[in-house]
């Protein structure tokens, strides 16, 4: 046993306000503790309701390292169940999505379960007569997670039976999700196709931190964004000629430091926060004909303008997703090991809005976040260099004190200069608290 097993308090102490110890990124024991405590006690994104639109539709995914199924029950509501047969442990569904009809049936011994998890039938059940099976947890069927919430189509779950409420966990940070959904004239999103799936050999938190790292784009992405600007200038097109799409999507990454300083960063309690309080790289996208009119029809001019003038860049929902409201993108950073993270990048269609908006979002997704993306390539390179570099024994701490001039209170919402690393510190503040969230209960039990 190493330094951290069974000792979440020791792990939580690795965050010191202005710096964080490298073990949070490279130590397998800290990773195990994160899965057991942080991912169990926080509210974690599962999937979108439109991925399971019909009764019996399911979607298999994971919450931290826990295999789960999002399923539409016969009553129409969505349940989240552990993907494990209560008999021998077999995963009930193997494929990523499908329709199971009125019940799940384990492929191993045909135990069957209603789509809310309740045990329905066992073949040759007389073999369990007088065995006391009904006294075991196996007889209760597929286990459900602690709590599930469908927030405007986005399904979140808390694994722990007891804990922080959905409202307390997210608070006012839900304004970013609201803005993303409000951009549909119908007030509804639908998933558009499968996600990009991109494997990174680095810790999941590096990816989350990078979402509000506004001092890297003009450096790490000079080779793509800078070259795009150079090629465009060489074309010498007239001012009013349509720009190549790459210029609209990629070139803003080359914006100067002042642009990012002035965009602002807002942090909310529990590790949530966003860049782009005042403007963002999405601010100057071209207008799509007919869209504003549809928005006005639904919301009236004043509210339609208010919705569309919000240009939040990246909103991080602790622990492991990021959304881009203005373009309806969601990225989930799925932790697989201390040094292995699967990134899935989803896009959503604004119901009742012109297709051109979806097309631009799809373009953003493939240009920036695909395994084939010339922007993504340099990000991955930086993360993996960091993962390897952190092994160096000469220095054991990672510095996160940019624009931190004293003790910080993360329980209050604040807006600061857009190049602050406060949101990274905010995430670690939440990380340390959720790491030790159930400590009092465990101590009482011991």
């Amino acid at each position, binding site marked *: 046993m190493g330094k951290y097993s069974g000792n979440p308090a020791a792990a939580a102490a690795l965050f010191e306000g202005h710096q964080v110890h490298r073990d949070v990124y490279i130590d397998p024991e800290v990773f195990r503790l994160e899965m057991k405590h942080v991912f169990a006690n926080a509210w974690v994104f599962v999937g979108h309701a439109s991925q399971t639109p019909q009764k019996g539709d399911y979607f298999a995914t994971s919450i931290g390292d826990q295999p789960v199924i999002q399923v539409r029950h016969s009553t129409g509501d969505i349940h989240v169940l552990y993907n494990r047969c209560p008999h021998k442990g077999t995963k009930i569904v193997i494929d990523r999505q499908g329709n199971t009809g009125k019940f799940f049936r384990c492929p191993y011994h045909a135990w069957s379960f209603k789509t809310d998890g309740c045990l329905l039938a066992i073949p040759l059940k007389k073999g369990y007569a007088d065995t006391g099976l009904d006294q075991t947890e196996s007889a209760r069927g597929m286990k459900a997670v602690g709590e599930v919430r469908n927030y405007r189509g986005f399904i979140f779950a808390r694994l722990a039976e007891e804990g922080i409420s959905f409202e307390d966990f997210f608070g006012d940070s839900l304004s970013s999700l609201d803005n993303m959904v409000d951009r549909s004239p119908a007030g509804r999103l639908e998933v558009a*196709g499968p996600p990009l799936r991109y*494997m990174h050999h680095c810790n999941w938190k590096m990816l989350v931190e990078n979402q509000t790292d506004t001092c890297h784009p003009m450096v790490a992405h000079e*080779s793509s964004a800078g*070259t795009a600007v150079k*090629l465009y200038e060489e074309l010498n097109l007239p001012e009013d000629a349509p720009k*190549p799409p*790459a210029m609209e999507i990629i070139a803003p990454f080359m914006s100067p430091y002042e642009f990012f300083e002035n965009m602002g960063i807002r942090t909310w309690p529990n590790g949530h926060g966003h860049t782009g309080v005042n403007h963002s790289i999405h601010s100057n996208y071209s207008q799509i004909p007919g869209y504003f009119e549809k928005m006005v029809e639904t919301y009236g001019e004043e509210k339609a303008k208010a919705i569309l003038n919000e240009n939040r860049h990246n909103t991080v929902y602790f622990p492991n997703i990021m959304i881009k409201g203005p373009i309806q993108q969601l990225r989930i950073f799925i932790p697989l090991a201390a040094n292995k993270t699967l990134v899935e990048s989803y896009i959503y269609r604004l119901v009742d809005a012109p297709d051109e908006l979806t*097309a631009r979002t799809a373009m953003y997704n493939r240009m920036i976040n*695909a395994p084939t993306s010339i922007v993504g390539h*340099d990000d991955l390179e930086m993360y993996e260099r960091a993962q390897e570099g952190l092994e160096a024994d000469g220095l054991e701490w990672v510095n996160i004190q940019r624009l931190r001039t004293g003790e910080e209170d993360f329980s209050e919402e604040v807006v600061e200069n857009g190049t602050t690393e406060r949101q990274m510190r905010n995430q670690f503040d939440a990380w340390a608290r959720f790491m030790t969230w159930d400590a009092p209960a465990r101590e009482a039990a011991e």
Partner: protein
Amino acid sequence: MSVTREQVIDFIYDEARMLDEGRYTEWLALWLPDGHYWMPLDYQQTDPLNVTSLMYEDLFMLKLRVERLNGARTFSQKPKSRCHHVLQRPFVDEMNGDSFATTTFMHYVETRLDEQQLLALTAKHDLALVDGSLRIANKRVDIVNCDAAFRNIQLLP
């Protein structure tokens, strides 16, 4: 002037060789200005625009991609990747006057540092005869495990 089936097939082999040898200026010159290089994300994907693809790139993006490979601050290409195509003999599916369609099954290897990945591909080319030369009008590359989680794919399969 007309083009033989043999010449169409040779064109496909020559293109793959240009990519493997990094002769990108020559490769870009094969393209017609309105062409798109499409690499779907989904199996049997039909729509390149309104769902995500791995690539759907016009000539500006392809130039940018190629130009970036040689940049002084292209960090993910320090050191550079290398690639290698092995082609099955291309099928010439259509020969209609000045336009041609081919399907080619290939194995693609890309390597950098200590990693090497193997992708099985189906490449579909739309070719056109313009001013006596065969050119690429459009190219679609389907990766057989397109829905798998990939690491970086940095060159052109």
